[in-house]
């Protein structure tokens, strides 16, 4: 009996021993699954970042071509008695065209001339105009002037287009490549930092498009959002955490806020369209409506984080304030809120970052219009940075792809700054 027991014990142990190897292998495999899952996340993040930065960084430079511009009275159409207004309306694109023809005299066909003109950006005539208006003495002279290259020519000069690919597959033609090579050899091309990306609004021409209008639009929209969401959110949090009686209504409000946080943002866009634009007849495409809608979206975030921050304030502070005769409201305003403020601000900044990246609801309320001008107030038509990204991403021109990535880099830069600020505040909060 005893012997048999020992026997079976031995057998069990042996079986366990035999299976151990397999079990340990399974253990190691399982750990590797975990590691590779974490690694997968990292790889996705890296691919995303490398892709955006790789595509976007060329947009921060621009190519210029040195042209001997002939400021000929006849080509420009300026009479001797021209007023400054006439000078401003002169035909500068004709001057550029004739100067280009002088530089490449062997171009004679219509098609050839057309491709020659496409080396220089359409916007170059405006910079010439500004130069002449400022200094009318230029008329009648010939100057070497750096003119902005057309986006396709620029893209070739940035080595984004291969010369070896078949001509039908690229926008830039062989003949244009030949000219550009000549210009490059003569030292007539130059790459500069693209300042106009930050100082101009949207444009149909990729090489002239900038994000200034979108940045202002985002600023005004977020301003409205903050002015609405922050006070209302904090007041709601104070009420729910400090004053609300435990009853059905309070429960309803709490459940409501939690569910609102999970409603898809596009539904808020529908609300904005039906209520603010269709019913209250507020202006379309305006930062005002965009800001209100975004405020409603961020409100749950701000309320939930503010409540957590207020709830974490130590009871001793309440007792001390109450003990010296402060009312409930005085206690909260004078003592609890200042202590909870870093936490509240952290939540609000995270909410604002969320609002900054939000796109879908703004499409609903018409912030997708093509807007070149910088908005000067909250009721002007405007677009915001994410919507600008969406619009450019939809444009077929190659030049817009790099603009899109560059705008994404700017947007992500702002988000990183905001989140870093939030982390910094939270760290300080934790120290106390």
């Amino acid at each position, binding site marked *: 009996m005893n012997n048999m027991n020992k026997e079976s014990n031995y057998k069990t142990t042996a079986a366990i021993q035999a299976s151990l190897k397999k*079990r*340990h292998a*399974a*253990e190691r495999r*399982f*750990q590797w699954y*975990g590691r*590779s*899952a*974490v690694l997968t*996340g*990292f790889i996705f*993040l890296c691919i*995303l970042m490398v*892709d*955006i930065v790789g595509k976007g960084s060329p947009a921060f430079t621009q190519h210029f071509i040195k042209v001997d511009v002939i400021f000929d009275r006849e080509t420009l159409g300026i009479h001797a008695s021209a007023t400054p207004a006439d000078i401003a309306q002169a035909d500068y694109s004709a001057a550029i065209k004739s100067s280009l023809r002088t530089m490449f005299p062997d171009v004679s066909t219509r098609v050839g001339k057309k491709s020659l003109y496409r080396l220089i950006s359409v916007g170059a005539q405006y910079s010439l105009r500004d130069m002449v208006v400022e200094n009318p003495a230029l008329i009648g002279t010939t100057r070497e002037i750096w003119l902005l290259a057309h986006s396709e020519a620029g893209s070739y000069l940035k080595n984004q287009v291969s010369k070896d690919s078949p001509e039908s597959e690229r926008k830039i033609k062989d003949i244009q490549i030949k000219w550009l090579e000549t210009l490059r050899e003569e030292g007539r091309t130059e790459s500069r930092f693209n300042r106009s990306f930050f100082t101009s609004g949207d444009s149909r021409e990729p090489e002239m498009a900038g994000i200034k209008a979108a940045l202002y639009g985002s600023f005004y929209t977020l301003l409205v959002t903050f002015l609405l969401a922050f006070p*209302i*959110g904090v*007041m*709601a949090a*104070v*009420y*729910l955490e400090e*004053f609300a009686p435990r009853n059905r209504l309070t429960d309803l*409000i709490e459940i*409501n806020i939690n*569910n*609102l946080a*999970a*409603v*898809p*943002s*596009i*539904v*808020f866009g*529908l*609300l904005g369209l*039906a*209520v603010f634009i*269709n*019913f209250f*007849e507020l202006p379309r495409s305006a930062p005002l409506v965009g800001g209100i809608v975004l405020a409603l979206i961020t*409100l749950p975030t701000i*309320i939930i984080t503010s409540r957590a921050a207020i709830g974490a304030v130590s009871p001793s502070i309440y007792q001390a304030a109450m003990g010296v005769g402060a*009312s409930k*409201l005085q206690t909260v305003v004078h003592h609890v809120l200042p202590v909870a403020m870093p936490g509240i601000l952290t939540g609000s900044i995270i909410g604002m970052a969320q609002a*900054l*990246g939000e*796109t*879908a609801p703004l*499409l*609903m309320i018409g912030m997708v219009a093509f807007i070149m001008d910088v908005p000067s107030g909250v009721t002007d038509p405007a677009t915001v940075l*994410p919507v600008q990204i*969406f619009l450019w*991403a*939809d444009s077929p021109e190659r030049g817009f792809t790099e603009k*899109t990535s560059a705008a*994404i880099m700017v947007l*992500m830069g702002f*988000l990183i700054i905001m989140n870093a600020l939030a982390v910094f505040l939270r760290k300080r909060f934790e120290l106390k």
Partner: protein
Amino acid sequence: MQTTTIFLALATLCVISFFMGRNRSRVVAMRLGNGLTALHSLPSHYGYMAAIWSALPALFLLALWSGFESTILYKLVIAQLPQSIQAMPANELGLYYNQLQGFAQGGFGSTEQDQIQVAASEHYRVLTSWSSQLKTAMVLVVAVVGGLLAVRRVTPLLRARNHVEKILEWILFGSSLVAVLTTLGIILSILFEAIRFFKVIPLQDFLFGLQWSPQMAIRTDQVAASGSFGFLPLLVGTLLISTVALLIAVPVGLMSAIYLSEYASRRFRTVTKPVLEILAGVPTVVYGFFAALTVAPFIRELGGSVGLSVASESALAAGLVMGIMIIPFVMSLSDDIITAVPDSLREASLGLGATMSETIRKVVMPAALPGIVGGILLAASRAIGETMIVVMAAGLSAKLTINPLEAVTTITVQIVSLLVGDQEFDNPKTLAAFALGLVLFVVTLLLNVVALYVVRKYREQYE
């Protein structure tokens, strides 16, 4: 501009009332000779009271006036018009009124004006300027009177602190109601427009129709098909993309959470988790761009190299990128749930000789399962409601298929494409967006309610 002026004037009056109220309380107190101790509240409370009474009624009046101004103006101007014009149908009359409004503001619509319209627009202009002047005057008078009345009421026995705090408490309560009002606004506005839609398109055609092609004439002179609004292809497309997303996000997110909470060292965890959470902070429009310009062409070429024909706007590309987006979401939720499983369960299992992975698979996971299911439901609701990725990377034409290599469209894509551009609130094409919005709202709400219920139930189990 004018509104700004009114607000500035109101703010000034408020400040003046505050100082008057505060001074008045001091004067009243000094008269009694007992110093400030004679007062029930601090002098500033009397000031606040005066300021509140100066601002609140005036703001109320301003809101009321702005709310009814346009309706009353409309009635007044129309009443002046000749009978023949008043007899026009309501929408033509509205158009006529808009034209004359535009003319009065000197903007567009100034062509094709007749004498009557010009006269009426002049009338309108006079009325508008009258109204705005009267509004300013009335609001300011109410503010001054309100402030003065409050200042006059100041006596040492007046319980100003209680008075002020009662009002402020109501304001706080009002702020917390904003969230409820938002939900109510969403439900009412969407429901209202959706019901108008279902009056034209029967509910069963919408719910069970297999054809979605909303190309309908918005203006009567447009040539277009009559449009069909069967919502099933959209539902299938949405579910297809969301399924692809969950197939990526759930294994990666869940395994990451398990590894980080059970195996990883503290240091590794504190570095890794925030880095992975960056994925959740990336704006969705960025993911959309990534999906449309990088992932979709890549998948297309990959499919082409093994002989598969992949649509350039395949559901796979959109789903894959959406999956990347919700990885951190699944990870954080599962992490919370897994760490909430009591250590005693793990210790018991390890004490019996189980390896760590056996413990996780056979003890921790079954215990955490309800919570994780809840988390996955939340992730699914997020995937269904996600808009920008699919708008940029998924197709527009509704195809009833479950092949992820083909282009499908989703509910959110259709909402955007129906509402961007021409809108006409009495056309089924525009209203269809609201019907879709209603479906989206109901589905995500149900998923959330169920998920939150499951998660809460699970938490109670171990608390």
